[in-house]
């Protein structure tokens, strides 16, 4: 088994902030917009370095998306920043018409995604955003797993022409992917090789999947672990190759099982290579207040839940 080490817990939103800082220095067309959450989104440094390219919109997310869309006309590359809930559901039609349908090069950067937002509770914990965004034609949907990957993704999406939804989170989590990684949109990352099961994870669940694979390995079960950071376009090829080998799959995400990564994987499999699948995801429910760990535990979004799902899915082969 490959060994992955946590080089020190960091929040993925800081990866976004640091990526944006770097982009600010190297790409003069990058502009940043925020809706009264500069600190939470870690956009302060970009703001300090480039006050003329930072736009404080106020608590007005719909206006922010519209302004961002307008700024692309003239060649700017706008990065909008607010919580995931206010980046998607709040402004869905603005994104749909002014960004996606109009084919505008806006990068919608969303922090505090999922249940690990914690104590603020369900009003702020969106578990539907992947579904909302992946349904929009032409929208690229990325959900990164750690600080390094979020930083790399932030930098990479500036060079990609087209609308992107970049999803990351609030809590400090293991940082284990390489600092110098070459982030390729739409390309799955194989983290472990095995023959008994494929575990496909995204976001905060990737580290949990690695922990699960270790436990399973101790029990004589070997797993392919795949980090899907890009949910759309999905790396069908990597998924099919793995499942053809293992014959079953567990998907893991911090999102509702309706509309998430799991459903995208199920579509690929049912079309090309039907195989048993178990879903680690929230079960069509809203979240609630609590600490991130408590919530991940209560809603079955951690390594032990993945281990159980793997045992179940292998039995269904």
């Amino acid at each position, binding site marked *: 088994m490959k060994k992955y080490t946590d080089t020190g817990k960091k929040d993925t939103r800081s990866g976004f902030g640091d990526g944006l800082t770097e982009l600010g220095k190297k790409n003069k067309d990058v502009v940043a917009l925020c809706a*009264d959450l500069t600190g939470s989104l870690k956009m302060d440094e970009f703001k300090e370095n480039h006050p003329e390219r930072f736009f404080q919109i*106020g608590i*007005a997310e719909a206006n922010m998306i519209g302004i961002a869309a307008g700024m692309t006309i003239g060649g700017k590359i706008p990065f909008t920043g607010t919580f995931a809930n*206010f980046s998607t559901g709040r402004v869905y039609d603005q994104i749909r018409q002014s960004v996606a349908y109009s084919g505008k090069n806006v990068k919608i950067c969303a922090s505090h995604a999922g249940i690990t937002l914690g104590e603020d509770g369900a009003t702020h914990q969106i578990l539907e955003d992947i579904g909302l965004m992946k349904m929009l034609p032409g929208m690229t949907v990325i959900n990164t797993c750690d600080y390094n990957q979020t930083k790399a993704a932030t930098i990479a999406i500036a060079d990609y022409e087209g609308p992107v939804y970049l999803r990351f989170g609030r809590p400090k989590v293991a940082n284990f992917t390489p600092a110098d990684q070459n982030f390729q949109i739409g390309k799955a990352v194989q983290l472990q090789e095995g023959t008994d099961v494929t575990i496909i994870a995204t976001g905060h669940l990737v580290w949990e999947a690695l922990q699960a694979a270790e436990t399973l390995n101790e029990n004589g079960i070997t797993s392919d672990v795949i980090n899907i950071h890009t949910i759309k376009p999905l790396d069908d090829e990597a998924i099919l190759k793995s499942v053809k080998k293992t014959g079953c799959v567990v998907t893991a995400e911090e999102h509702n099982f309706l509309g998430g990564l799991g459903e995208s994987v199920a579509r690929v499999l049912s079309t090309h290579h039907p195989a048993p699948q178990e879903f680690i995801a929230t079960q069509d429910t809203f979240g609630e207040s609590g600490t991130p760990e*408590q919530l991940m535990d209560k809603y079955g979004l951690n390594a032990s839940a993945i281990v159980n799902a793997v045992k179940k899915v292998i039995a269904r082969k």
Partner: protein
Amino acid sequence: MADYKALEDLVVQVRRDILRQVHKVNSGHPGGSLGCTEFFVALYNELMERNEKFTMDGIGEDLFFLSNGHISPVFYSVLARAGYFPVEELNTFRLLNSRLQGHPTTHEGLPGVRIASGSLGQGISVSIGAALAKKLNKDKHIVYTLCGDGELQEGQNWEAIMYAAGNNVDNLIVTVDLNGQQIDGATKNVLPLGNVKAKFEAFGWNVMDIEKGNDLKAIIAGMKKAKEKTGNGKPVCVLLHTVMGNGVDFMMHTHDWHGKAPNDQQLETALSQNPVTLGDY
């Protein structure tokens, strides 16, 4: 005539409740809560006509909607101390499986809460709906709403403000917590609101100021005047000039405590400025 001594005691106790709630879970929003404490105490104990028992429909009583849901600590404390649920339950604020969610919700069935809030900018619309339902029910009672000043930057408010005036929703009193602060700084630096009074007036509202928004007497007198203005064809707006973090010297006049809890030392200092009156939960 109000028993001001009793109300003042309640204000101090509610401040303690706010501070202790957010301190325990190291999260939540003390600044806006403290700034609106006197308003909540006056509203629930002097101004609103309330039924003994909580029902969702609230027929035959005044209703209150909190649009700026992040100031849940003051809402919860005042609800508990008005008898809607046991004060001990304040101990569960923001904990797993609690009815006292980070932002108010109906999902867990907490008595006193009629709509979820937290995502800003939606409360005035909901209040208009409830006010219209009262009219359809021939219920003469009033709908009260509180919203933040930063919150007014959300466009939906202005859709609602236009609607209420255009449709004579005159059983509605919207209070704006005019503390001049929001998350990223002073409202005038983040996105200037301009002349809020002139804006509401231009939309066709009856607008009045309560300059001393942390003074119980001024609030009670002002809100009574606001109530007299209802039923005259226009919705009523009260601009409540408050001090964010009021009652705790180091939390006042700054946005720093918008969403930050005090540490142990800070809590002690803050509580020493607000000694026990009615008893802690």
